[in-house]
């Protein structure tokens, strides 16, 4: 439907806007900056603070009107920065400065508009009464926990009877929209406030329910986490839908299932880290400065929560001594996994280098069992760490990590020197074992491929067919097969791709002929076989006499679908179905020959 467009001019520039838009919206499309205080895109405009006033010079009664609330009208002429406008804004800021000298945004704006000391009565209340918090809570979130109490100059924002609110859901929207940080929901919410942990950054920072995991996400489209989204939990809010310029938010969207017809399947479901919280001795989960290697990686990452700044989660200081503990859960019979996770030695060596780059005067220690550096140039890489004294490698396991006046004491053995060693560190990094990613067992069962007791998927043959599985057409790549570093993953991925291409590059595929055949003479159409066939390969075949009358309906096996499992053959009462290559007479012949 064609939205009828409204033409108006702002600062002598022609602009087209849609009905229902405000002067502020139209100005934005022209890139004209209009200051706002009580405006927020997700909250209905009130026109309360009057800082966004503009002058109407044509098309309506000449006056100062708030751009945020005044609707666009055909032929409207607006000056957004005339002298009259600047005077009004300057006086508004003078008054707000007298009321809220402490508010940063007011001080900045006042400086910009050249406000000087006026003989006004001074107050010291950060809240400039813009009403955003009350409007967002009442009209958008729908909880109405806070309200305006009183009127005139002693009007204040408060909860009923200034008591703890019994409806506040602690969403923090009020603090978010407040221009002067004058409201803190912690003071009136009956529950403690808790941030939503950003999984991508291992919970080191937080995110909103509608989010993209990381800036370079592909596809670069957000997802709404329905568990934390107010719209899905209480039915309120809907702010994202109102601000979305592309009207792309659709709360009623349901899961939908699509069918993909494919010839080959490559499984590359990756890995997860062992949950190191189970090892009491290392104190992960109890002492904030004990982190996992992935958390360490996120901290040093430039796109991480701290833009690459390394800091101790407990007090935010830079760790001067850091201890890396290897084989946490790996190569451990009880309580862990018996296999070596292969990549930890290498990435820990890398971590010591990264640590040196970040903290030049820092001291790193590594407790290791055996440094596994088998890849190309791997050993030289680790050798460099040792020769350039990036870290002190101590061969031995750590028995205990415990806090002592703000730092962590790491008590372990140094088998090369034969003694106990105790290091006071600012931070401890654990290298957890690699495990297949959660839920891979269910996937394997759906794909009917095998997996070992650790959950790693089973290759057809460890040496000869490492990227294939016992189920033809299903291939493996990456850490779902076993702990692998990136070069291995890529190599295996290309291998699996070529295997898959080998399969799908033909239009036809030859298949084992060992499938079932029905003896139509003895089949009496009881279709017991149909119930047991997992592939729906049993079809109803109609026999007709010359006149076309139906004489019998017999079972018939669809050659394409039958996999030759033989379930039907065994179930058939009249023994009318035989699996070629494993017919009963062949089996009995073999059985008869078991003894001389």
């Amino acid at each position, binding site marked *: 439907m064609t939205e009828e467009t409204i033409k108006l001019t702002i600062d002598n520039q022609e602009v087209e806007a849609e009905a229902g838009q405000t002067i502020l919206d139209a100005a934005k499309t022209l890139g004209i900056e209009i200051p706002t205080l009580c405006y927020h895109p997700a909250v209905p*405009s*009130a*026109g*309360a*603070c*009057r*800082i966004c*006033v503009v002058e109407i010079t044509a098309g309506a009664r000449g*006056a*100062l*009107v*708030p751009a945020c*609330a*005044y*609707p666009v009208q055909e032929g409207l002429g607006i000056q957004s920065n005339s002298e*009259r406008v600047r*005077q*009004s804004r300057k*006086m*508004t800021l003078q*008054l*707000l400065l*007298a*009321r809220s000298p402490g508010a940063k945004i007011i001080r900045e704006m006042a400086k910009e508009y050249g406000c000087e000391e*006026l*003989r*006004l*009565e001074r107050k010291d209340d950060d809240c*400039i*009464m813009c*009403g955003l918090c009350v409007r967002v809570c009442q009209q958008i979130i729908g909880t109405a926990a806070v309200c*305006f109490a*009183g*009127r*005139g*100059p002693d*009007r204040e924002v408060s909860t009923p009877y200034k008591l703890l609110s019994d409806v506040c859901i602690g969403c923090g929207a009020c603090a978010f929209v407040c221009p002067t940080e004058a409201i803190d929901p912690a003071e009136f919410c009956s529950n403690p406030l808790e941030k939503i942990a950003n999984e991508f950054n291992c919970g080191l920072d937080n995110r909103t329910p509608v989010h993209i995991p990381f800036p370079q996400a592909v596809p670069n489209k957000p997802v709404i986490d329905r568990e934390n989204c107010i719209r899905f939990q209480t039915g309120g809010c809907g702010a994202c839908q109102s601000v979305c310029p592309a009207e792309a938010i659709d709360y009623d969207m349901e899961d939908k299932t699509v069918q993909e017809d494919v010839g080959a399947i490559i499984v590359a479901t990756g890995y997860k880290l062992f949950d190191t919280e189970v090892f009491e001795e290392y104190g992960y989960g109890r002492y904030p400065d004990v982190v996992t290697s992935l958390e360490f990686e996120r901290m040093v990452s430039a796109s991480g929560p701290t833009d690459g700044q390394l800091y101790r989660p407990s007090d935010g200081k830079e760790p001067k001594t850091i201890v890396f503990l290897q084989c946490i859960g790996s190569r451990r019979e009880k309580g862990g996994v018996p296999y070596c996770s292969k990549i930890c030695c290498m990435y820990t060596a890398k971590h010591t280098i990264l640590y040196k780059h970040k903290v030049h005067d820092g001291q790193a220690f590594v407790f290791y069992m055996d440094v596994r550096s088998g890849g190309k140039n791997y050993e030289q890489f680790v050798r460099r760490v040792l020769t350039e004294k990036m870290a002190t490698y101590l061969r031995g396991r750590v028995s205990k990590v415990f806090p002592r006046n703000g730092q962590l004491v790491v008590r372990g053995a140094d088998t090369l020197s034969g003694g106990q060693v105790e290091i006071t560190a600012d931070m401890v990094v654990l290298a957890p074992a690699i495990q297949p990613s959660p839920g891979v067992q269910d996937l394997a069962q759906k794909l009917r491929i095998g997996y070992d007791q650790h959950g790693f998927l089973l290759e057809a043959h460890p040496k000869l067919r490492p990227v294939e599985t016992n189920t033809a057409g299903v291939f493996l790549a990456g850490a779902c097969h076993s702990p692998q570093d990136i070069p291995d993953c890529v190599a295996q991925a290309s291998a699996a791709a070529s295997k898959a291409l080998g399969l799908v590059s033909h239009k036809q595929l030859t298949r084992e002929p060992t499938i079932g055949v029905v003896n139509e003479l003895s089949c009496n159409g009881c279709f017991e076989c149909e119930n047991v066939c997992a592939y729906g390969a049993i079809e109803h075949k109609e026999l007709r006499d010359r006149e076309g009358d139906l004489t019998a309906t017999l079972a018939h096996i669809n050659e394409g679908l039958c996999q030759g499992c033989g379930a039907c053959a065994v179930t058939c009462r009249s023994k009318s179905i035989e699996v070629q290559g494993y017919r009963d007479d062949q089996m009995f012949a073999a059985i008869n020959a078991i003894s001389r």
Partner: protein
Amino acid sequence: MTVATRLANAGDLASLRQKILAGRKSTKIAISVCAGTGCRAQGSMELFEEFQRELQEQNLTDVEVRATGCHGFCEQGPLVVIFPRKIFYRGVKVKDVPRIVEKTIRNNEVVDSLLFKDPATKKKCLLENEVPFYAKQQRIVFRNNGKIDPTQIDDYIAADGYAALAKVLTKMSAEQVIEQVSQAGLRGRGGGGFPTGRKWDICRAQPGDEKYVICNGDEGDPGAFMDRSIMEGDPNSVLEGMTIGAYAIGASRAYIYVRAEYPLAVTNLSIALEQSRSLGLLGENILGSDFSFDVEIVRGAGAFVCGEETALIASVQGDIGSPQQRPPYPAQAGLWGKPTNINNVETWANVPVIIDKGSKWFAGMGTEHSKGTKVFSLVGKVLNTGLVEVPMGTTLREIVYDIGGGIPKKRKFKAVQTGGPSGGCIPESLLDLPVDFEKLTEAGGMMGSGGLIVMDERTCMVDVAKYFLAFLVDESCGKCSPCREGVMQMHSILCRIVQGEGREGDIELLEQLAAYVKESSLCQLGGTAPNPVLSTLRHFRNEYEAHIKDKKCPAGVCTALVEFEVDEELCKGCGLCMRDCPTEAVIGEKKQPHKIDVELCIKCGVCYEDCPFDAVIAK
């Protein structure tokens, strides 16, 4: 009250009117006792019961006693008018009842002591229209006040009530009604003066069939009480006006917003609603037509800002009364977001008359742009205080002197304040200004709801400005920064000035703040809040300078700047001031000139105000 039988059509109404009139011989004697809030405060209900008992005793059963709405001359209350001759007795006490019944009712003689004595001519006035207060008035909106009993719909019908509605429903289309009102030149009596016809037309043109009509009975202006008397004295005229308006606009529901301070108005309106519903003049298919319309009463709770249309709507919707930025105007999106037309009580009361007597008759009254009459509440330092309904164009001098009787205690006239907290003051030099929307605005005042507050030489204009700002600080809703912060700062400056701490540059700062608040505020409360200051500065700048430079209050009101002294010659030693002085600061013997002990005196100003001989002077 005839048995409430539902009127099926206009014909039934006309026959009902004939029946009522037949039952009332015009020659029959009727005693009308004013039962408006003002007179009730002076005991008029006891008077009413006394009359009934007295007539009962003397079994003068055919004499009727009627408790009517406000006559307007509240200061002389309790008022009694004896029909059919319309003998006007004022200040009637319960003890006067036997004399009145004996002499006037029985023997048609006049009780001389109860007649009104015109202070100027010292002559006694017998009939109501001889009293100067009423002589110059032309009572259109008050046509029934003082004549009918507001709680009896029959009285209203007898006085051609609902004839206009019948005419509209049977003969006129909605467009014709709007055309009549437009031609009549009726303009909003709430203060803005927006042409009513155009306002109805805009609301009518809006799409959608769910529309609302609202009667704005908030009357927040201090010093204005004409809406109260209309609602108490003639509620049916308001209902009829609203029904006609709703028919013109196409609204099916209406609300009357009555402020909390008017309980009697709520009562009388409720009675009128019940009665008109039972007669089928309200509710489903009025008078058999296909027009259905009903009215509910909605009570305010004490907020001047709720006089502003969008704040009123917010209040009706059950929220705090904070105005909304316009557009959209209420005519486009008002109550529950639907098109809503809001008019003042007095505006609605004019509508039936316009329809009844025609727009040309109405346009005949008033000036070129302001047609019809306006009810003013003449209060303050004036002899005859009360409600004055005069045609537009009457000069202020006529109102204050001819009708108002001039300034008591022979003090000099200083200014008259029009338009309440949104208006301004008009000095003596402009007394000959004819009263209409344009002229008053030019002079720096404003028509407003019609409050005319007369001030004499003993009124300090700076104090008046401070008073209005104090009022606005208290009544501002606090939503937008200019009004919340600006008015408060202006008020604190004035407080400093009246405390004697005014400094150079204060006036310029006041003017700067005033211009800013007037221009940037969200609603008209803020938009007009600086008017009192601006108009007092414009006409009485010297008084400001006196307060600031000389630290003096010429009118002797600002206590911090004034010393009270007794003028030996004038003081007659009557001892009135000594009795009232809260801190016994006045000493002196009977008949001897008294003296004020400056240490004890807390300058409460009681003696200065109450001295009958103006013997107390302020230095």
